[in-house]
């Protein structure tokens, strides 16, 4: 048995099959229980009062009239958390405003009542004394010296002294000498770009049910990407021991990063504690837009030099991301990732994190990377155009390989970027004829991928089936992939394994379902837990046969005697060993915990054809191709699904989706009618090519696939539109009015 984590080539029996997911029947019959589907006896309904102002000092909150309304059982404000929390907890102040409302939609109070109608009525009786302050919602405006200041003390020492206070962090990455590199170039292009804020757009609003007992212990049911992170954050805010709070993750109706933090969960717990009853809190869609975490809006300058024959001599980018009212925009990831697909001698990226009067951003699929890739890939495309070069050939010439020093300081192990470029080059879409008003765009994308804290247990059940417990919410079919890897390692059929998502009382800390980490890290831990169980089963067989443990090996789901002194014994299957386990030492379980390393970076190349209606500025996507390195696709159906879903989110962001703020600092399109995400009739089929260059850091070669697919689309579509209309587009989204403006300009 191989005891190291590294990839070993093998013939797979279960991994790589398009199996049906174990939660499938529940999901197609309405039986699956999501965040808002849970109830409890005596449950109250909670509603949140939100600031109508983008920026206002809160001089006082009078809740007495609301508390006096019949049917109201509890009202909470920031004061109800004040005794317990650690100072300067941005997440808490985001969940409940402290002394200032920092954005339109910022929670200022919450009510629990016997019905929705009573709770709504009570909200109207809460009197908040606001002193309205000047606000700023634009990233470039917020960086100006005379901009309204959100926080006096949020800037850290990374920012040069004298920089305006809304600029809270500075990051720099790169190597070489960019000025020397630009001097070697035959052509240098510098452009400025803007991208607007997009929302993750998960269809399930945030929802939870909190039940706080008089013994100080609580249960929380919620839709989240990470029940352990919710426990840690809520326990901290409420002054609880982690072990006194049990968090159960419901089925989750999409997250894309937006459910990696808390918004309503601590509020529901505080209300339940105060009312002494279970409290259900579900966001309305307008609250999701106004008060959960969209991604950053950005302003980026990008300069790249290229020789006549297509060698990139230097690249430089300066990135400004606003992440809402608190530090933490993903500009660091943007600065690290923009040039990451290329093998560059001279590269520099500087990132500025800026606060504005907008909701605190949350992670959105490859946070920070799509905007940086948009700028870099647009300039590369324009250089190719100006120099008369093939954009795929130029990328193949400059692309990163094993051994390339990345702009963020890591030297890559084996990667599959060139393979994705060549997959696009040999795909029929690359040579499909284009008609009038049509254009073709190509772009590459990169994402780091993550491993992280992972804890997995599996039990060999007495009938020879296997119960696998993992600690990461299954957001897109991961129970199937975990079961496949478990079955593969144990040598048993897929349908003998059942994977469940444990609550926080059952396993050690698991990092959230993010960073494309689950199939990689939880898969790794599952394989290791299976190996642990195999070792024990070999031991049981050895005891039965009266031979040493090391004279037993595991093959095709059976223990077999091996080696010269093992003797002749018929193989014992997993089921046979399980059936007699009570006579050989009791139940058999496997376990593994780790902080997984070696996630394996991920690359993709996207190719898109569009057609523009010159009268209306409407963009129709004609063809779309995703080629991405999956390392090893455990369940190809769901790998393709990740490619397609990420690409379509990118299409929406490129063409339509944006947060629109009025002069008053209020969000003007807080609903799916005016924040329009792509619908079926907007799209063609999304073609996919799964490239498999095994990740050396995983026993089966798996790389995460969830995030990279949203990185290239902004640039790929912008390049296609720019070719179709003969004008270089520099702002996302390219909504019809912006395209008409470009055509007329």
């Amino acid at each position, binding site marked *: 048995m191989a005891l190291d984590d590294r990839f070993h080539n093998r013939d797979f029996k279960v991994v790589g099959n398009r199996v*049906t997911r174990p939660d499938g029947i529940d999901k197609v019959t309405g039986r699956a229980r999501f965040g808002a589907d849970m109830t409890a006896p005596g449950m109250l309904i909670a509603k949140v009062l939100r600031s109508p102002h983008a920026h206002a000092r809160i001089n006082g909150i009078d809740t007495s009239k609301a508390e006096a309304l019949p049917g109201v059982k509890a009202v909470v404000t920031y004061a109800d958390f004040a005794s317990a929390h650690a100072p300067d907890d941005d997440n808490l102040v985001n969940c409940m405003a402290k002394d200032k409302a920092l954005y339109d939609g910022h929670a200022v109070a919450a009510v629990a009542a016997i019905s929705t109608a009573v709770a709504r009525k009570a909200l109207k009786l809460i009197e908040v004394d606001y002193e309205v302050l000047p606000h700023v919602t634009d990233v470039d405006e917020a960086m100006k010296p005379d901009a309204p200041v959100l926080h006096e003390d949020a800037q850290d020492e990374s920012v040069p002294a004298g920089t305006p206070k809304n600029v809270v962090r500075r990051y720099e990455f790169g190597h070489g000498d960019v000025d020397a590199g630009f001097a070697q170039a035959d052509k240098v292009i510098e452009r400025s770009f803007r991208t607007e804020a997009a929302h993750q757009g998960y269809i399930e609003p945030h929802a939870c049910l909190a039940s706080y007992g008089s013994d100080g212990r609580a249960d929380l049911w919620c839709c989240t990407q990470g029940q352990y992170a919710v426990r840690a954050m809520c326990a901290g805010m409420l002054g609880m021991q982690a072990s006194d709070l049990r968090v159960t993750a419901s089925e989750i109706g999409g997250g894309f990063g937006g459910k990696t933090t808390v918004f309503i969960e601590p509020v529901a717990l505080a209300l339940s504690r105060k009312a002494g009853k279970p409290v259900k809190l579900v966001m309305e869609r307008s609250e999701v837009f106004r008060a959960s975490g969209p991604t950053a809006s950005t302003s980026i300058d990008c300069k790249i030099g290229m020789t006549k024959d297509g060698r990139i001599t230097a690249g430089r980018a300066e990135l400004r991301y606003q992440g809402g009212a608190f530090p933490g925009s993903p500009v660091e990831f943007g600065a690290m990732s923009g040039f990451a697909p290329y093998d560059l001698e001279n590269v520099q990226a500087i990132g500025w994190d800026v606060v504005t009067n907008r909701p605190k951003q949350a992670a959105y699929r490859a946070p920070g990377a799509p905007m940086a890739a948009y700028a870099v890939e647009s300039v590369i495309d324009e250089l190719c155009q100006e120099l008369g070069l093939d954009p795929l050939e130029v990328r193949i010439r400059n692309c990163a390989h094993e051994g390339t020093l990345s702009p963020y300081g890591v030297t890559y192990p084996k990667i599959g970027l060139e393979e994705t470029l060549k997959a696009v080059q040999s795909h029929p879409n690359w040579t499909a004829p284009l008609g009038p008003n049509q254009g073709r765009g190509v772009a590459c994308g990169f994402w780091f991928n993550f491993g992280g804290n992972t804890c997995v247990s599996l039990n060999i059940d007495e009938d020879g089936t296997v119960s696998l417990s993992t600690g990461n919410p299954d957001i897109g079919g991961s129970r199937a992939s975990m079961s496949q890897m478990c079955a593969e390692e144990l040598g048993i059929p897929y349908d003998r394994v059942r994977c469940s998502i444990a609550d926080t009382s059952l396993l050690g800390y698991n990092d959230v379902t993010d960073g494309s980490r689950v199939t990689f890290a939880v898969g790794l831990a599952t394989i290791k837990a299976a190996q642990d169980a195999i070792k024990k089963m070999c031991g049981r067989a050895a005891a039965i046969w009266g031979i040493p443990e090391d004279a037993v090996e595991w093959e095709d789901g059976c223990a077999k005697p091996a080696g010269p002194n093992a003797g002749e014994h018929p193989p014992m299957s997993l089921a046979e060993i399980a059936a007699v386990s009570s006579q050989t030492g009791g139940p058999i379980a496997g376990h593994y915990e780790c902080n997984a390393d070696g996630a394996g970076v991920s690359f993709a190349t996207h190719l898109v054809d569009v057609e523009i209606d010159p009268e209306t500025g409407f963009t129709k996507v004609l063809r779309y191709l995703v080629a991405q390195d999956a390392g090893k696709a455990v369940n190809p159906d769901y790998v393709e699904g990740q490619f397609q879903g990420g690409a379509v989110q990118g299409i929406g962001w490129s063409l339509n989706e944006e947060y629109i703020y009025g002069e008053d600092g209020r969000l003007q399109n807080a609903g799916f009618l005016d924040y329009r995400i792509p619908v079926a009739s907007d799209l063609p089929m999304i073609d996919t090519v799964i490239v498999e260059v095994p990740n050396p850091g995983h026993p089966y070669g798996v790389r995460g696939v969830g995030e990279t697919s949203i990185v290239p689309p902004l640039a790929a579509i912008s390049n296609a539109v720019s070719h179709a209309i003969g004008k270089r587009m520099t702002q996302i989204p390219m909504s019809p009015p912006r395209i008409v403006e470009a055509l007329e300009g």
Partner: protein
Amino acid sequence: MSQIHVTTKINGDETEFLCGPEETLLDVLRDHLGMTGTKEGCGTGDCGACSVTVDGRLVCSCLMLGAEAEGHEIGTIEGVAKGDELHPVQKKFLDHAALQCGICTPGFLVAAKALLDRTLEPTEEEVRYWLAGNLCRCTGYDKIVRAVMDTAAELRGA
């Protein structure tokens, strides 16, 4: 506030309920009748997660009052399968991996079945426009459209 007494038929079963005059059919299904298979994604008729049929017509149950169900036949996701036997479109959604998180799936299935009850020969374009009222953020619709087209092909014996 006085409650309204409503008599209706849900998935073929005679059903009576009391509801407030302001409550939607979606509120009634989820909060009074425990039928949580129908989902609320927006409450404004923009996402289709709450799709049901009323006398065979596809409706957003968040846009209809509970009281308006009086005398009508309501169809929900819970009635798409017949006992243990999945409807072909449910099977095809699983075969084609036409769902990731699954929150939009009940609405898509109710909508897709309503389409297939009308025609077994929809073009890809017809499927895409019929389903344009249902939002899915995970799949990019590719596998959903394939699943519906494949169901139609199977049902017409092609």
